[in-house]
């Protein structure tokens, strides 16, 4: 195999417009590409301050510490000028591993590059805010650089104690915190000290798990997924990457460098990763067994930390049985390519779904599955799926993409979920969605994965449901339930933020403000009030979903009000939500936002019936808007006592008006009848008068006579 020096892997591609381009190809498994050139700011930009302490100089890039998705710059600590720090400026729109950043900032782990601080700050070269992570600067530089420059040498005798032991120890500690590193590669190993004695794992938090990894460094199942969909993974994935890294460091070159990704994957699928990578290389005897164990494609057979520890301490180790991947003696030819394993064919099927459907329908395929691979049950399952598709021709379950998703899941249950060109592991759904939505502007297939329950096909195909699988299935089902609701705060936007804790809010109002934390949302909206169309509500689908996903308070009543079809209830829901946030998060006055929302309160004011109350509100609102206090605004506009009084008054006045109307109509409609009644009354009165006079006269006469 071709042998290329390690440093040739680090080919940085310069990209325009400051954005990482969409992944190349329809399979989505292209390698991640280098980040923007625009991040390298000209020296004219002044230092950028992070948390009023760390000065990041855009004019002082550290190219040798760049990562594929972030650029490195010199950082000065304003309180400790002797400290050596550097910062990585992340790519906007690319989810960072926020939970890992927070955990490592609090608790340092030996042999992992310490994180000092982080924040979302304005980066002048990008013209927007982005996440910047400050690390301790590795004074010894990259291990691969030093190896290439022959400043150091690591042989098979140094490897166990100098590299494997410290790194495995760091990974184990990370694993104990339920985290995986997922960024172990030769060029991401650094010397922390100038004397190049302490090796540390480099930055891993600036991109989704596995995103920056070459296909070679990913275990087989995750390598077949697109870079954003490789998933969070676990310690077993790190151990595989550590194994490959050891091989590359030992050899000093990449034995498969000349192979394209597709060729490499196919070779790994057909022959196994160890055989493909190490097959033609001269691996020292003492490292063969651990490398076979660490490079095992079957994750259940792969070495764990105990095995590594046993090997490092010279204790007894379990020798891995040499086992070739399940493959057929005969091949199945698909698009001129011969396949000997179901995994290989499934991987190829997913790239060409239309041709795959034709192939699946052939008798040769069924025979090959049944006899060639000796998988009659899988062949039967695919046969049933083909028939089910014919019965559901009018629905999504009758589409070629659905059939291919089901067939590939049956053929390769450990591989990624494949649907409409997407390929992702279940725990990589969130990052895959972010990538497809934000960078490719094509979220529909990713949305269909949930709405059509494509993941269920994959779970149904699993030979055994482990705890990890059950957990991931539960997460996917929760995302599905969130997607099914169409109200504000739900839908695919909510899925995006639930699936990516480190993604910034993508609302057009605040997209350039890099809002990663909920605390930064209101100030960003306040800032946006000066530049956006304020005739629409400030809480759009993205903002509502971001708040619902990040705000640790019960906001259901607010979301329910916002979902109301009535304009007054909706704007009150929005106002009360923002006021609740300002109050809970102790956000300072937001003059712009209060002015923005104050201008939208017309329907809420008009919800009051009493004209005097309306006039009072219209008179008082500008005063509160100038104070920038949303809680006071909501207290004014949504005073329960005032609203109750208004309702009761309106009800009473409606009744009074109606009573008056009834009486008027009674009077007016009476007409002739009323005249008759009046005449009758007059006659009665006349009779009464006459009788009264008569009685009076008689009485007077009698009394006069008596007297």
């Amino acid at each position, binding site marked *: 195999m071709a042998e290329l020096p390690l440093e040739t892997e680090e080919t940085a591609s310069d990209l325009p417009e400051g954005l990482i381009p969409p992944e190349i190809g329809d399979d989505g498994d292209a390698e991640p590409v280098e980040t923007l050139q625009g991040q390298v700011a000209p020296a004219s930009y002044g230092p950028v301050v992070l948390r009023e302490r760390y000065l990041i100089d855009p004019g002082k890039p550290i190219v040798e510490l760049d990562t594929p998705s972030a650029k490195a710059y010199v950082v000065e600590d304003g309180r400790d000028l002797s400290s050596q720090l550097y910062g990585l400026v992340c790519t906007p729109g690319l989810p960072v591993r926020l939970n890992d950043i927070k955990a490592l900032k609090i608790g340092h782990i030996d042999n992992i590059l310490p994180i000092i601080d982080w924040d979302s700050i304005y980066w002048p070269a990008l013209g927007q805010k982005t996440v910047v992570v400050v690390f301790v600067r590795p004074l010894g530089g990259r291990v691969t650089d030093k190896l290439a420059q022959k400043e150091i040498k690591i042989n098979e005798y140094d490897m166990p104690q100098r590299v494997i032991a410290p790194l495995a120890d760091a990974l184990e500690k990370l694993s104990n915190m339920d985290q995986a590193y997922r960024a172990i590669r030769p060029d991401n190993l650094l010397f922390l000290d100038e004397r190049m004695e302490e090796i540390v794992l480099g930055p891993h938090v600036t991109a989704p798990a596995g995103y920056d990894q070459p296909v070679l460094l990913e275990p087989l199942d995750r390598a077949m997924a697109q870079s954003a969909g490789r998933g969070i993974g676990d310690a077993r994935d790190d151990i595989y990457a550590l194994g490959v890294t050891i091989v590359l460091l030992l050899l000093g070159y990449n034995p498969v460098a000349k192979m394209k990704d597709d060729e490499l994957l196919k070779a790994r699928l057909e022959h196994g990763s160890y055989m493909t990578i190490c097959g033609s290389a001269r691996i020292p005897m003492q490292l063969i067994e651990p490398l076979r164990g660490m490079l095992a494609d079957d994750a259940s057979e792969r070495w764990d930390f105990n095995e590594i520890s046993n090997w490092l301490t010279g204790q007894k180790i379990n020798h891995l049985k040499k086992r070739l991947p399940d493959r057929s003696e005969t091949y199945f030819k698909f698009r001129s390519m011969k396949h000997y394993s179901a995994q290989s064919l499934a991987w190829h099927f997913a790239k060409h779904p239309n041709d795959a459907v034709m192939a699946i329908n052939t008798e040769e395929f069924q025979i090959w599955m049944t006899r060639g691979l000796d998988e009659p049950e899988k062949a039967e399952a695919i046969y049933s799926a083909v028939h089910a598709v014919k019965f559901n021709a009018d629905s999504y379950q009758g589409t070629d993409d659905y059939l291919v998703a089901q067939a590939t899941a049956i053929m390769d249950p450990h591989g990624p979920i494949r649907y409409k060109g997407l390929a992702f592991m279940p725990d990589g759904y969130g990052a895959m969605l972010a990538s497809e939505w934000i960078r490719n502007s094509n979220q529909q297939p990713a949305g269909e994965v949930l709405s059509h329950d494509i993941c269920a096909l994959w779970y149904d195909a699993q030979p055994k449901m482990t705890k990890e699988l059950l957990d991931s299935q539960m997460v996917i089902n929760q995302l599905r339930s969130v997607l099914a609701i169409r109200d504000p705060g739900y839908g695919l936007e909510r899925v995006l933020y639930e699936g990516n804790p480190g993604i910034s809010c993508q609302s057009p109002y605040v997209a350039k403000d890099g809002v990663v934390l909920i605390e930064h949302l209101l100030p960003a909206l306040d800032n946006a009030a000066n530049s956006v169309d304020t005739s629409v509500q400030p809480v759009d689908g993205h903002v509502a979903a971001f708040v619902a996903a990040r705000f640790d308070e019960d906001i259901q009543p607010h979301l329910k009000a916002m979902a109301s079809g009535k304009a007054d209830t909706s704007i009150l829901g929005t106002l009360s939500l923002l006021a609740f946030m300002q109050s809970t998060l102790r956000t300072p006055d937001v003059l712009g936002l209060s002015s923005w929302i104050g201008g939208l309160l017309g329907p809420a004011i008009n919800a009051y*019936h009493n004209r005097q109350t309306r006039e009072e509100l219209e008179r008082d609102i500008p005063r509160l808007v100038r104070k920038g206090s949303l809680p006071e605004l909501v207290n004014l506009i949504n005073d329960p006592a005032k609203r109750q009084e208004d309702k009761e008054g*309106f*009800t009473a006045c409606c009744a009074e*008006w109606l009573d008056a109307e009834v009486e008027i109509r009674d009077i007016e409609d009476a007409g002739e009848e*009323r005249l008759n009644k009046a005449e009758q009354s007059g*006659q009665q*009165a006349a009779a009464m*008068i006459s009788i009264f006079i*008569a009685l009076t006269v008689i009485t007077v006469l009698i009394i006069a006579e008596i007297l």
Partner: protein
Amino acid sequence: MAMSNTSEGLNWNLILGIGLVLMLLTAFSLPSLVVFSVGLLPTGVALIIDRSDQRTGTFCVGGMNLCGVFPYVMKLWTGKHTLTAAMEIISDVLSLLIMYGAAGFGWMIFLTIPPVIATFLSIIAQTRVKVLRATQQEIIVAWGPEVANAKQTDTDRDASSSNEG
């Protein structure tokens, strides 16, 4: 079964009552009967021509007619209670004028008071309508035209929701 007091439009109870009174008067006070018979002739005429249910015309004429007759009956009762005295009264033009004039006054009351009362009541009704219209206008100014458009069911709903709230 209750017996009906009327048969073919005749009130037999009334006829029997009047007959009894006439018999008693004939037996014990024939002069009074003579004066009443002649003096209350307008009332009798009114009774015949007044077809209303409540007989208000008869009461009007009768009441005033009695005012005119009663002084002469009193004169009989307190003076000579003789048929001759009775004849003198009913043959005196002035007496008859007073009796029949009083009856005419009663008829005049019957003709003039009802229209006056009707006009008065009509004015009161129109005034009430104006007051109600003004009240409605005030309500609309204070609460908006939707007050007039709100149906009773709406107001009921508002009331119930406000109670819930």
